[in-house]
Each structure stands twice: as C-alpha cells, then as structure tokens.
C-alpha cells in the first residue's frame, strides 16, 4: 500500500513528460539549396531563415515549427542533385527551395519528379523550367517556378526601355550584351523580338563567356558600332563589366538585367563604378512594391548587414507560401501540397503570387502583369538604388555619369 503511494508522483511526472513530448511535435523541414559564397545565392537561405523565424514566433504551422535545412551546392548541378537526394531521403524535408541558377534547377527538375519532392526556385529564370512542367505535367507537377521566366524579364525591360529610352531620350539603336548561359537564351530571343517593336534597332548581339575578365575588347567593339544603349543580360558576371565600363569611360548607357547589382554591396564591390547602371528586378530595398517589401528588406539588412539580392525577396515569400500550402493541405503529403500551392493567392514582398495552371506553357510560373507581379526598374544613383520605373514607384529621373553621352 505504502509503495503504491510512493509511485503516484512518479506516474504524474511520466504523464507530464508524455504530454510535453506530444506538444513538441517534430518540426516541418524545408530544404534550401543554394550557393552560399555568391552574392545572389547567399540571400536565399538567409531570407528563408528569416521567414521561418517569423512564422515560428507566431506559433509555427499546424502546431509544428518550421526548420530550414541548408545545403551549399557550390554552383554545381552535381552537388545540388546530391543535396536534393539527401534532403529528400535522409533529412526528410517536405519542400525544397532551390538555387538561382537555371542550369542547376533544370538538373533538379527530374529529381523533384522522381522523388515526388515539391520544389520551388526563387531565382532561376530559364523558360525551360516551366516548359518542362507543361510538357509532362503528371510527372513534373512538383516543380514551381518562383521567379520571372526570361521571356517575361525581356518584355519587362522592353516596356521600361520604351518609356525611358525611346520616348524620353529618343534612342534608336541598341547592342544586346548577354552572358552565355541557359537563362539568357530565351532572354536574348525575346530581346531581339521586342526591342525592334519598341523602336530600338538591334545593331549587334554579343554573347560573352561568363569566364571573361577583361571586357575592354567587347566594349571597344560595341563602341565601334555606335549604339545608343547597351541592353544587358548579366548575372554570373557583374562587377567586372561594370567597373571596366566606368574606368574606360564607355560613353554608352547600360540598361537591362544585372543581377549582382540588385544587392546593396554592389556599390562597395565596384567602388561606386555602378553609378548610373540601370537594372530590372522584382523588388528593391526602399521601394514599397507591397506593404511587405520594406519591412522585410529592413529586417534583413538589420540582421545580415546588407540588403537582400533579388532572390532573397522571393525566397522569403516562398517560405510563407509553403507554410500556407501546408496549412491548406493539412500536412505534408506532396500531392496535396502541390494542389494547395496551385491555389496560392498570396501578396508577398514582390507582388501578388498566383501560379499559372497546367494549360499555360508557363505552367507553375507566377502570373506577370498588372494586379500580379510586374517588376521594377532601378538605377544606381550616388550610392543608392533608386526606382525609376514604372511611374507609380519612381522616385527620381534616370540620370547618367558625365562620361555617358546620350543622343541629342
């Protein structure tokens, strides 16, 4: 009898323990695969972690915490595939946010299909990513394209060029200068179509090797052709063409895509040579594309010391969309997650996300255009990234350093 009384508190303690462990349900894991040592890639895991911390502070998802598991793919498709397999098979993640490099994402797509592992890319742009889903929806449906496809980027650049270059500065000719990569193939194809339509005759189309260090001969050739503007498509390269453009006083403005220029460290990396460079992006620090843009970029800068690259904004939004999908699906079943993701209607830091359905050739790419996500054009002006297009977010006029000669 005495012995039974003694057991009472022990039983109570056991019961409390059991209750606690039921409450502390295992976290929901999201894998993040990106190149940690590049400016664009480094923002991806950091922004994802920031989103996860915010969601967890609010109690997590379905009573479970979100855990971000990061993998450095060193910009290599082989490393990324290995990381993806590990994430799915060993670390048992429920969703993967992967890379800003199209070549890497294209290599991961079949693995997402094979392992039924939902995946979204926050920064890769090649049209092929969504075309692959369209061509084989039943297998590829686990892939989502969380950034502008290259064709839409080119269209956005052309729209801005029409207003800023053709209408305002009466420009007539352009040279397209893009790096040789998967994402620039559709980009250049669309540039060559849309630039003449807005009144810019393309006098040359130059594709530069991403290994190029000395751009002098390239600028020299371009200058010889006397275009009014250089329309860029650069992401793997950035600092070197920019610095040499300024050092050599190349008198032609650079306008288009320059991914590295999207982060605030670019001014320091180029010692200010980026002054006057114009680039298209999804969102930028200090530009309230939505009410969520500035709070995110401010928090990010406070925590990591620099503003996020373009892929940081999307990576942050991705975690929130995944969390919503998990809630809607009532768990992490991949097929239910895909269905829930397809129903996404979410206002993030870059605009309103609604994904195209399987009948669109851009399957699972977010809708682009008014009321959805539009993109903005920003210019580096005296150490600051200043929005110059579209008119509703523009804070200043486009202006160039004195060595740039604009057509009269």
């Amino acid at each position, binding site marked *: 009898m005495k012995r039974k009384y003694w057991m009472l508190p022990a039983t109570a303690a056991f019961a409390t323990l059991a209750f606690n462990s039921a409450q502390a349900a295992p976290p929901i894991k999201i894998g993040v695969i990106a190149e*940690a*040592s*590049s*400016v664009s890639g*480094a923002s991806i895991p950091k922004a994802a972690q920031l989103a996860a911390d915010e969601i967890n502070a609010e109690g997590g998802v379905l009573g479970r915490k979100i855990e971000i598991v990061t993998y450095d793919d060193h910009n290599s498709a082989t490393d990324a595939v290995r990381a993806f397999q590990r994430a799915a098979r060993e670390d048992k993640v429920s969703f993967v946010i992967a890379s800003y490099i199209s070549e890497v994402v294209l290599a991961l797509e079949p693995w997402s299909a094979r392992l039924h592992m939902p995946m979204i890319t926050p920064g890769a742009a090649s049209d092929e990513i969504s075309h692959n889903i369209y061509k084989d929806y039943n297998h590829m449906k686990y892939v989502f394209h969380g950034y502008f496809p290259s064709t839409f980027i080119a269209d956005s650049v052309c729209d801005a060029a029409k207003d800023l270059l053709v209408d305002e500065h009466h420009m007539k000719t352009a040279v397209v200068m893009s790096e*040789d990569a998967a994402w620039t193939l559709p980009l250049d194809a669309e540039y060559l179509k849309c630039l003449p339509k807005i009144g810019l005759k393309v006098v040359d189309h130059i594709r*530069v*090797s991403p*290994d*190029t*260090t*000395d*751009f*002098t*001969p*390239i600028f*020299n050739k371009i200058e010889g052709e006397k275009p009014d503007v250089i329309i860029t498509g650069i992401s793997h390269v*950035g*600092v*070197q063409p920019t*610095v*040499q453009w300024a*050092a*050599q*006083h190349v008198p032609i403005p650079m306008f288009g895509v320059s991914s*590295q220029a999207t982060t605030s*460290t670019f001014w*320091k*990396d*180029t*010692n200010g*040579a980026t002054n006057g460079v114009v680039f298209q992006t999804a969102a930028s620090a200090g530009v309230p594309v939505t009410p969520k843009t500035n709070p995110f970029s401010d928090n990010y800068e406070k925590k990591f010391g620099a503003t996020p690259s373009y892929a940081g904004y999307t990576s942050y939004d991705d975690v929130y969309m995944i969390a919503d999908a998990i809630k809607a699906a009532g768990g992490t079943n991949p097929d239910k997650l895909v269905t829930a993701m397809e129903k996404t209607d979410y206002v993030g830091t870059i605009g309103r996300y609604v994904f195209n359905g399987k009948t669109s050739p851009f399957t699972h790419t977010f809708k682009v255009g008014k009321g959805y996500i539009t993109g903005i054009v920003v210019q580096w002006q005296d150490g600051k990234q200043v929005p110059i297009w579209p008119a509703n977010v523009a804070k200043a006029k486009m202006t160039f350093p004195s*060595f740039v000669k604009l057509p009269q």
Partner: protein
Amino acid sequence: MKALQILIDGFAISSLYATGAIGFTLIFGVSGVLNLSHGSIMVTAAVVAWLVAGSFGAGPYGGALIGVGASVIVSLVTYGIVVRPIQKSRAIAREEKEIFVLTGTLLWGIMVQEVIAYVFTNNPKTVLPLIGGVVNILGVRTPRTEIAIAAIAWLAMGLLWLLVNRTRGGKALMAAAINPRGLTLCGFELGSIHLLVWTIYGVLAGIAGVLLGSFLGVSSDNAGQLTASAFSIVVLGGLGSVTGSLVAAYVVGYLESLTAYLVNPSIRTVPVLLLLVIVVYLRPQGLLGRR
C-alpha cells in the same frame, strides 16, 4: 586605331603578368619550389586592399600597401607551414619532396581561396584605382590607372633587378639559384636566403594582385586561373629564368590581346595554350630555359 589599342592594352596586361610570374619563377630558381598557391596569394592581396581601402577608409594607397603586406604575410606563412616542413621532413623521401610541395601548395591555395570565398563571397572585388580618369593617347581612350599599372609593374621589376645585381643579399640569391651547395660552403645560411626570396615573392605577387584588382577586378574564383597563367608563362619562358619569364609574359599578354580583339574574347587563352603545347614538344626547356 585598333592596333594602337591592342598595343596599349597588351602592354598593361603583359606588365601585370610579368610582375606576378617573375616572383613565381624566382622561387623555383632559388629553391626548386613550384608554388601552386600563387593565385590565392594574389587574390588575398587584392581582397585585403579592397577591404582596407573601402571599409576602413585607408584610401587607395593605404589599401594597396596593406594588401601587399598581407601578400607577404601569406607568402611567408606558405613557406613556414607548408613548404619548409615538407622540405625538412625525414619521413618523405628526397625524390618525392617536390611532388609533396606541389600538392601541399595546391591544397593550401584551395584552402585560402575557400576562406576568402566564405568570408567575402566569390563576387569579384575592385581595388580603388590609384588614379582615376582617362587620357587620350592618339585617339585611344586609356584609363590613367592602366598607365600607372604598367609604370608600377616596371618600377617593381627594376627595383628587383637592382636588388639582385647590386646588393649582397641579391647576389647571394642568384648564387643560390646556380649552386646552393657552393653558397653554404661560403658560409651563407640557405634558410635566410629562402626567407628573403619568399619575401620578395610576396611583394611581387602582392603588387600584381592589387594592380590586377584595380584594373579588372579579382574574385576568389580567379585563383586557379591566375596560378595557371603564371605557370604557363614560366614554362614558356623556361623554368627558373627571370628574363625568360619577362619575355614570355609579353608573348602571352599580346597573344591574348590579339585573340580577344581580332578573333573572340571568349577564346583569348586558347592560342596561348596551343603555343605552350608546341613549346613543350619542340623546346621543352622553354624560350630561355637553362634546365
């Protein structure tokens, strides 16, 4: 016009190549070491110069000086913790030491490169140019910094020539390259000669790194390419021959510039590599080699 442009650009880039490669060949000549961490040491100099000049407000000259200082430190550390322990080791057979040094410096170089990429990302950094602006040379718009780069590179090489030919330490250095055993018999400490040559090397590699950083911008990803280009120049010129490296640097610099301007910038290094293969076949000792 294009010819003059090639002449000017080729001269600047060749002077840079020469400065980097001469230190590389000097070490080989004096101590038989092929330092495969060369590119990483150059990158260290450039990144430190960028950091100090920009973030710590030291300005272009302060940044450049500290960048070169960092290069000397890394160079001496390379000698102290990688090269010397292998050379002194009794566990490694004498005939295998060269290959161990080669592997050791290669791995050390990768480590330095990875650390730089981890801390500063692999995005290229641009060192503040010593002077800004452009000048017009017979119609060719040339950045002033490009002229300064060629002048500084030649000044450094001129000082090296004076050091080697006019000072006791420098003469001992050359003697060590010709007959190290004879030098020790004359009472010279070979260890301090090696220390001297690694210091000189550090200064030259540092200057080359900082200048390259201000001219084209340097990323940790360039380390391997920089080592390969120094290696090609040194093999082409003749292993251990300082004059050979100087000549080879200009052959490489101009061949690259001609290819980039007249054919395609994407294949600028291809003709140089072809030339290297031909030289290795027909004249394995290089243009002015002595072994």
